[in-house]
């Protein structure tokens, strides 16, 4: 059109568009090409923008301002039928344009809307011109996720990944200024202060805050207690003078080297003569401790519960670091689950060594999210026991022997940071410490009665997975369930009805089904719809996997779900998991208790969009469930 330089209106349009994906990643030349071909249209509140009746889509629309809602079921469209909500910077309809067909949803202005409009012809030309644009249009959710990942990596890389390396500067691992006092302070006061702050050392500084000595708990025995010194003595009399110091830019491994060479336990960091930090031997150990290999080998070799408690903390630390390095949610939740498995295994091994249960053949079962290998950092215990009954004995007798054993394990897990299950879904509950036949009977009742409690139980127990012991018992139960659950379509229907009661939210800002305090429950509203649907379809098609992603992959073929749809479900599920992990990490950093509730306003624009897209995928999967079971 124009060969002259773009005028202020084109430039302003360019600026506006580049605030949003995918335009923020497109080359300027392509953006100018786009802006020069745009027209601007207005749609009054309630007006239909495009609908299936209008035939092949003629325009690609980008929202300049206002909110557009898409209604999928045109026939039954009502006010509450909105199924996606689009905001400033978002574009539609992509699928219809790419395949040159009419839209399947009806798009309506839910308030006054201005849209930039590009002809379908120019839209296709742009997908050929701009790779970034093409990529966005064809792999919408995958593309957004990639961007989000880059942002997360950028955010976290400074705060933590660097900290974990032996080659980072000392300044990177110092968290706060150490506690110090005047060398003339009486010992009693010094010791009281160390006790109050739970610190192992006290540094003496002069008026200019220059360190002049150090005194550690280790010194108390040899320099104070045994010589029988009075606690009224000044610190200066017993401290080690002229402590070893390093500047902030010295590397962590220099400090390690100095400690090894001179046998120091503490090294001071000094900047311009002033005390700035304290590095202890323990700080250095913890740096090396939290690698994946280190954590797992520490668990395998742990001899006492205290060691495992430390490992449990290390697992959380490791998860945080991996999150920071941009490890995908799938791997991350699997790693967490695997390490938690190891930990549980070791607890059981230690317990068996301490209090053997003799020749009882049993298998420890992981249930719920642990059974699905989807543990986040906010998980209480869900476990059970399955055992075989030897000839001449009864299930009651075996149970009586196993329950105290299970109780101790539950308590140990609790001590390692897996709180006891509020709903008593634990191996130490006689209801969930059952022989193979008893488990079959229990499951059978649930399947044939389908009372509300039975349905709830099945969502926890049917995701069981053998964790320790006689696997064949769990396998036999799984095989039995595979056959029985598949036969009973009434039960599947009941599960579907139950699952559909939990609807994912619609949009992001308005119309949002937002709970107390303007929050969204990522687990209930985001994860559960995927987990439930995947479970029901798997039970119906005799698929024995318990992991939701694996289930989604395996049901795709029997259910005729297109591969890219299945992939989108998986991506959506994983994104919500990732948000949960990030949320938990942030809550840990702030010292808050972990919840799944997030304030949507706290997410950046990109994450809001992906989350919305993820909820849309959840609704899509639910719609499929609804159609298949005529809910």
């Amino acid at each position, binding site marked *: 059109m124009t060969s002259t330089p773009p005028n202020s*209106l084109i430039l*302003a349009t360019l*600026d506006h568009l580049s605030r949003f994906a995918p335009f923020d990643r497109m080359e300027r030349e392509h953006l100018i090409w786009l802006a020069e071909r745009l*027209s*601007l249209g207005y749609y*009054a509140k309630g007006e239909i923008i495009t609908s299936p009746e209008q035939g092949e889509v003629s325009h690609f629309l980008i929202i300049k301002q206002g909110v557009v809602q898409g209604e999928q079921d045109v026939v039954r469209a009502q006010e509450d039928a909105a199924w996606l909500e689009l905001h400033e910077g978002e574009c539609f309809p992509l699928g219809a344009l790419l395949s040159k067909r009419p839209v399947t949803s009806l798009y309506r202005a839910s308030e*006054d809307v*201005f849209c930039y409009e590009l002809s379908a012809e120019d839209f296709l030309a742009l997908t050929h011109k701009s790779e970034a644009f093409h990529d966005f249009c064809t792999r919408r959710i995958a593309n957004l996720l990639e961007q989000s990942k880059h942002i997360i990596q950028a955010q976290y890389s400074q705060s933590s990944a660097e900290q974990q390396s032996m080659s980072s500067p000392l300044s990177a691992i110092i968290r706060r200024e150490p506690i110090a006092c005047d060398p003339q302070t009486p010992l009693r006061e010094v010791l009281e202060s160390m006790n109050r702050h739970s610190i192992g050392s006290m540094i003496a500084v002069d008026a200019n805050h220059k360190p002049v000595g150090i005194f550690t708990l280790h010194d108390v025995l040899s320099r104070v207690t045994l010589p029988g010194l009075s606690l009224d003595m000044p610190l200066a009399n017993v401290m080690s003078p002229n402590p070893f110091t390093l500047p902030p830019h010295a590397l962590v491994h220099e400090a390690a080297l100095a400690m090894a060479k001179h046998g120091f336990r503490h090294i001071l960091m000094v900047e311009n003569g002033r005390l700035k930090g304290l590095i202890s031997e323990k700080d250095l150990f913890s740096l090396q401790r939290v690698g994946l290999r280190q954590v797992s080998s520490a668990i395998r070799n742990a001899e006492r519960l205290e060691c495992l408690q430390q490992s449990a903390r290390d697992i959380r630390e490791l998860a945080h670091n991996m999150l920071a390095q941009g490890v995908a949610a799938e791997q991350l939740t699997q790693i967490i689950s695997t390490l938690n498995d190891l930990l549980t295994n070791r607890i059981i091994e230690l317990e068996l060594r301490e209090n053997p249960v003799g020749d009882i053949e049993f298998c420890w079962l992981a249930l719920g999210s642990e059974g699905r290998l989807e543990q986040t950092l906010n998980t209480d215990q869900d476990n059970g026991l399955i055992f075989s009954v030897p000839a001449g004995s009864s299930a009651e007798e075996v149970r009586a022997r196993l329950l105290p054993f299970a109780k101790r394990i539950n308590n140990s897990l609790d001590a390692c940071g897996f709180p006891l299950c509020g709903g008593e879904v634990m191996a130490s509950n006689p209801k969930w410490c059952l022989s193979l036949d008893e488990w079959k009977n229990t499951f059978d009742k649930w399947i044939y009665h389908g009372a509300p409690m039975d349905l709830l139980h099945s969502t926890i127990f049917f995701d069981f997975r053998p964790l320790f012991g006689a696997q064949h018992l769990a396998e036999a139960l799984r095989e039995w369930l595979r056959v029985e659950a598949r036969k009973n379509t009434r039960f599947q229907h009941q599960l579907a009805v139950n699952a559909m009661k939990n609807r994912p939210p619609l949009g992001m800002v308005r119309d949002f089904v937002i709970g107390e305090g303007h929050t969204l429950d990522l687990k209930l509203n985001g994860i559960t719809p995927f987990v439930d649907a995947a479970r029901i379809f798997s039970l119906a098609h005799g698929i024995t996997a318990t992991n939701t992603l694996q289930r989604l992959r395996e049901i795709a073929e029997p259910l005729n779900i297109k591969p890219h749809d299945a992939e989108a479900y998986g991506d959506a599920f994983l994104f919500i998991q990732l948000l949960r992990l990030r949320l938990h990490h942030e809550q840990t950093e702030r010292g808050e208790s972990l919840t799944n509730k997030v304030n949507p306003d706290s997410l950046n624009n990109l994450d809001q969009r992906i989350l919305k897209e993820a909820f849309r995928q959840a609704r899509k999967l639910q719609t499929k469930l609804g159609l298949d079971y005529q809910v």
Partner: protein
Amino acid sequence: MSLLKQMFGAKPQLTASQVDRLRAWRDQPEPDTRLPFDASRLVVVDVETSGLDVRKDHLIAIGAVTVVNGKIILADSLDIVLQQRYVSGKDNILIHGIGGEAQRQGMHPADALLAFLEFLGKSPLIAFHVEFDQSMIGRAMKAHLGFRFEHTWADLAYVAPALYPQLARRYRSLDKWMELFGIGNYARHSALADALATAELLLALRPQLEARQTMSFQSLRDLERERRLQTHPI
């Protein structure tokens, strides 16, 4: 040309090609102003000037966008600065943001006005507070092209209150109406940005116009006249 001569309307000297361009513009056929919006081209205009006195101040910039078949065509827009012999005062520059350098480097006024005419064609003009834009452009045409610019205008400052009489008392400025429809402005007091905002206002008035089945430029004029008679009965 002295200021006096300019004020008393000495005939400006046009080059042969400028004369040809002016004639070509004049010879274009007049459009049918009764065509509905979705089958017509309208031009929405806004100007920046050295001040608010329509007799003394002069035209600095013209911004215009087109509304073709009911949509604003972004690339079919005009953003033109007229070359100034005397740069306007600092206070004035602070309003429209066209600095001294830009004013001196603008397009020669006759060429700038011809470019505007060629952009406009014979499409009807729309503005908010037409009197001002009309006088400023008219005076510049007279001074630099030596002809009386008599064009058909419609004024949204009258059309909007005619459509929303209950709001008329409180809504007088363009800003107020923009606020009502949540219309943004990427650079208020830049001629092109204000023209765009005015065009967006026109689009936002469409549902009310449709409700009255007044969907042509001519009907905008009728509404405007109706409103003028109500507010300033003769």
